């Protein structure tokens, strides 16, 4: 069984491009060109150079000795929090802005949840001098205020999404509407491995730099390119896709995807898509999503804006259904505690999204010689107020 995309744009049963005709020209142009553009050597050169000189790659693979000691196993943190703008999201936006330029686009739109993708998009737009519009749920605008401020500093226009749950899902709807209304000059920089084909594959390829680096970094430090486990949180699934990518076909490496259980999986306030979801269509792709019996998309909940999404990317739906990856879910409380623990054990304040991955050690035992790589997808600066309020610091 393959875990990569097939020629029709599917991962197993999931994927495809369920899009309104209005988006057809844009999506089709992307589909026809993305692989060729991305494999062009000039593109690769420019991409790699920006990743190095602008983003600050390679991000370190840091052996967390105090955390390892606490759980009596070997834990490496892949430090995407050290990237410019503070999360893995920028790997993708750097790639897509170069692609957008080659497609002749002069206006960029994006959706954002935690604001990290919005900031990463506003950043590359500033870098290239391109107009930038960011859609963000009204609730998320409130709970991720620092990132809203950053987008404004970077010259982007932030438009609140006022419908539905006023979070990531609704921001995505608004971005798609914008694209429908501005098909010629605009490129939509989707922020995760979601949306119609070729987005999931394209974003996964841009993020695959993460596991590409893990391979040689682990080789340097442990003498093997293969960890026993790779662990990542899943909102849409881009940081997980990046961390899993080069290990997808090698089943000796166990993959663990961590979702947000919010106030508890069965509390009615959660975003644990794989467990609670059913197959369906959201934002242009067939995947797992949380929905009513009637096919209405459910409003998810998580304390973490970046995981507060009712779907997962089609790659992850496939990894779940096929059993290739283990899916776990972590509540708000567990995540917050794990975030504080990492801060005080290793001096790294993680994004609340990432804190979900860090919380699994209280649920799952590992052997003392297991090599575990956790994708530390982002830093917690954007979440400080939430942490402070939560812990009454």
């Amino acid at each position, binding site marked *: 069984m393959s875990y990569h995309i097939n020629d029709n744009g599917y991962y197993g049963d999931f994927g*495809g*491009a*369920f*899009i*309104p*005709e*209005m988006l*057809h*020209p844009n999506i089709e142009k992307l589909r026809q060109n993305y692989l060729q553009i991305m494999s062009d050597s000039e593109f690769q050169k420019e991409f790699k150079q920006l990743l190095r000189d602008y983003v600050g790659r390679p991000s370190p693979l840091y052996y967390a000795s105090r955390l390892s000691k606490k759980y009596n196993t070997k834990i490496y943190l892949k430090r995407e929090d050290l990237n410019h703008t503070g999360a893995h999201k920028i790997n993708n936006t750097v790639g897509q802005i170069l692609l957008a330029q080659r497609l002749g686009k002069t206006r960029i739109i994006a959706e954002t949840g935690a604001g990290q993708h919005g900031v990463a998009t506003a950043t590359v737009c500033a870098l290239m001098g391109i107009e930038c519009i960011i859609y963000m749920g009204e609730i998320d605008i409130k709970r991720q205020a620092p990132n809203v401020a950053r987008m404004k500093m970077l010259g982007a226009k932030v438009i609140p999404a006022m*419908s*539905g749950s006023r979070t990531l*899902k*609704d921001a*995505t*709807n608004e971005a*798609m*509407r914008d694209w*429908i*209304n*501005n*098909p*010629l000059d605009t490129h939509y920089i989707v922020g995760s491995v979601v949306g119609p084909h070729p987005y999931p594959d394209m974003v996964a390829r841009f993020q695959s730099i993460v596991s590409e680096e893990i391979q040689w970094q682990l080789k340097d430090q442990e003498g093997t390119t293969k960890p026993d486990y790779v662990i990542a949180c899943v909102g849409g699934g881009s940081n997980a896709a990046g961390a899993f990518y080069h290990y997808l076909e090698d089943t000796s490496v166990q993959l663990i995807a961590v979702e947000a259980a919010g106030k508890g999986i069965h509390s009615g306030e959660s975003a644990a898509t794989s467990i609670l979801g*059913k*197959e*369906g*269509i*959201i*934002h*242009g792709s067939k995947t797992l999503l949380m*929905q009513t*019996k*009637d*096919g*209405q*998309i459910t409003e998810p909940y998580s304390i973490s804006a970046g995981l507060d999404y009712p779907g997962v990317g089609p790659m992850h739906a496939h990894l779940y259904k096929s059993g290739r990856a283990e899916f776990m879910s972590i509540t708000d409380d567990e995540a917050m505690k794990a975030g504080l623990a990492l801060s005080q054990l290793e001096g790294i304040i993680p994004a609340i999204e990432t804190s979900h991955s860090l919380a699994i050690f209280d649920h799952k035992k590992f052997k003392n010689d297991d090599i575990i790589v956790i994708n530390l997808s982002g830093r917690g600066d954007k979440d400080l107020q939430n942490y402070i309020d939560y812990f009454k610091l």
Partner: protein
Amino acid sequence: MNRIKQQLLTDKKLLSIYFTAGYPNLEDTVSIIKSLERHGVDMIEIGMPFSDPLADGPTIQDSSTKALQNGMTTEILFEQLQAIRQSVSIPLIIMGYFNPILQYGVEAFCEKCQNIGIDGLIIPDLPMDIYESDYRQIFEAHGLINVFLITPQTSEERIQYIDANSKGFIYMVSSASTTGVQVGFGDEQTSYFKRIADMNLNNPQIVGFGISNNMTFKQATNQAKGAIIGSAFVKHLTTEGIDSIDKFINTILGECH
């Protein structure tokens, strides 16, 4: 013969009206349909409300949210329409996003439509290639016409392809926009209308998006076979309620139709 095809054979310019089922009130569906037929509308698109109608603008989006809050479901809609053919004879099309249909079961959905007497479907997020490979057979087995869209950005080649695979009419989106965004037609649209007319397609075209009064209706149907009004009608329902539908239709068709 399918009622849509029949209606397309008449030589009048067709007025088709979209409304969101379950809006303004859950039980308005049937009254609205009857009222529309009574006042001269030629075809109706019954919108199945969806939580995330990404091809629609704020008006239809809001009406969908309200309809869902009112309790509208696929099941209830079918119940409401159960006896519709006892009183209504113009073509009825269900317009809805694909996920609720998928959850209902595509085959079950089509069967239900056939039993009720629905003539066609418009599913904005079911692209033609997926329809062709996975669903055409089912739709056709139940006598349903699936309507496809073209836009000003659709390439000539793709228009030909859509035309070749369409069985009733082509839904011609007047401009690149979600519903309700346009305010009137300018040069760009006029030349687009002409360009499509000049292609002499097999399927007649019905123009949608941005039609809100007699002038835009006339512009739209100057060369096309008909026009679809959505947002403007939903807005009318919001402000005027369902009792003055005649007034709305009259302003569209002009006083002396």
